[in-house]
């Protein structure tokens, strides 16, 4: 099992992580959007490179145990975005940008969900012996 290239549970947990990631991005974008008029608020963003490193680290235990779902320790993955034009009140949220990020994350979530649902259909098909 540890050496098989792709197994179902690894793929499913990867899809699950993808959905978790999309949800986190949505939460960050929605937090930015709700603070679009708060003086002094700085746009928050997920930093993907470090998030990816975290996930690759989390994949190591997944190889030793097929049921390992990977870590969701994400304390430090959200940080203030750098640059961006700030308004006079120190706020640098761009509403359009956040709405776009929100719908982007939504469609990522939807595509992962579609694949995951197809996976589950296959499993159900196997359980029902092809009926």
């Amino acid at each position, binding site marked *: 099992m540890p050496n098989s290239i792709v197994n179902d549970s690894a793929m499913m947990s990867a899809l699950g992580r993808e959905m978790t990631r999309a*949800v986190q991005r949505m939460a960050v974008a*929605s937090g930015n959007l*709700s603070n679009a*008029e*708060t003086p002094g608020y700085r746009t*928050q963003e997920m930093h993907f490179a470090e998030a990816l490193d975290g996930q690759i680290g989390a994949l190591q235990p997944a190889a030793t145990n097929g049921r390992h779902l990977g870590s969701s320790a994400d304390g430090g993955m959200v940080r203030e975005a750098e640059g961006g034009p700030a308004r006079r009140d120190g706020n640098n949220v761009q509403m359009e940008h956040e709405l776009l990020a929100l719908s982007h994350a*939504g469609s990522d979530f939807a595509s992962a969900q579609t694949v995951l649902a197809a996976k589950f259909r296959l499993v*159900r098909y196997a359980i029902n012996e092809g009926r």
Partner: protein
Amino acid sequence: MPTLRSAISSAAGALDVQRARLEVAISNLANAESTRGPDGNPYRRREVVIETTRADGPQGAFGVKVAGIVEDQSEFRERFEPSHPDAGANGFVRMPNVDVPEEMVDMLGAARAYQANLAAITLIRETVQKALEIGRG
């Protein structure tokens, strides 16, 4: 950890805040010419103080709330109108410190932010719906 629930409650909190801003802007506009308040002074312009919070625990999404509604302590405007019953000895009437165009702009901003957060809630709700479909045949 941020969840869809914390995302939705953060957007809902923003709806609350923007509605409060709209209400305050409208009451400022309505009282732009009120020369008598309960304390005998002209109406003072009110302002909403907005504060960032954590919507759902320390790791949740950033939310927002109304920290308070404060009175603008800037000077009253004065208008020369000797026939006005509230005019002083020199013929000047003290008028509220409300700037009508500024209130209009604030109102537009609040309405736009309200719409954006409503759109966000719709998107998040669709995602929740989509998540529920995993369990369906």
